[in-house]
């Protein structure tokens, strides 16, 4: 068991402050993406911290502290979506990928994007990627935010979201290709 966890279990306030500084902003970002509402997200984070405080005493450290906290966050977000009467996010089955011909070749050729040569071009691409992520359906959005934005590993994401590793892999692939398609479309329209 980690030293930090020992200190937390012993009620060390400085240790808890470390935990808050390390995770709070990421929790707000992930919760905002999960419930799509800033006010609701803050409540979800608040509820999560309360659950963490309560659960620390009995937390056995089978998963990492970080994974455990974010799994609680995800459960709180799901609860929130239910009480708000919104549809809960579920994975969808694989459709036929229409970008390819029957023989597995691209329907139309893929052209390279121009290299972002200066700061302004880089910023433009960054904004497009952000807008592309925003446009994703759940749970693709959550998977790409956890994986690519916040840097969680594949196994961590599947544990946090309570989905299989294969499901996590497929969702990440679809999310990245959808964001790529979004950028491609925007670049074409800008021409």
């Amino acid at each position: 068991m980690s030293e930090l966890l020992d200190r937390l279990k012993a009620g060390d306030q400085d240790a808890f402050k470390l935990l808050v500084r390390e995770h709070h902003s990421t929790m707000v970002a992930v919760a905002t993406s999960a419930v799509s509402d800033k006010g609701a997200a803050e409540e979800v984070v608040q509820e999560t911290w309360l659950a963490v405080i309560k659960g620390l005493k009995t937390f056995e450290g089978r998963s990492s502290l970080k994974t455990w906290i974010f799994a609680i966050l995800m459960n709180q977000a799901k609860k929130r979506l239910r009480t708000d009467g919104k549809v809960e996010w579920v994975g969808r089955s694989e459709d036929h990928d229409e970008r390819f011909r029957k023989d597995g070749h691209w329907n139309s050729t893929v052209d390279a994007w121009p290299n972002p040569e200066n700061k302004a071009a880089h910023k433009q691409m960054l904004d497009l990627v952000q807008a592309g992520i925003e446009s994703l359906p759940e749970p693709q959005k959550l998977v790409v935010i956890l994986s690519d934005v916040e840097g969680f590993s594949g196994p961590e994401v599947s544990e946090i979201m309570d989905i299989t590793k294969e499901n996590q892999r497929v969702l990440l692939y679809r999310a990245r290709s959808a964001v790529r398609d979004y950028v491609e479309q925007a670049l074409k329209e800008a021409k």
Partner: protein
Amino acid sequence: MRTCEEFAHDVTDYIDGKMTLGPRMSMILHATICSSCRAYRRQIELVRNLAGELKTSQEPTEETVDELAELFTNSQ
């Protein structure tokens, strides 16, 4: 030989370094002869890297930290 569709479906594992040697070699071979898949791989890679730049690096305010710390201590 791998098709473009198979290439595209595995490209996420490929750029994340999660493929074993055999499949990895067949990805590399396909990319050497297919400019569309080469372009696609670079685009997916760029999307992944740019997404990483969106991470919020700001820390919570001291007020938030203190409030939560107080909750923690009061619950002991």
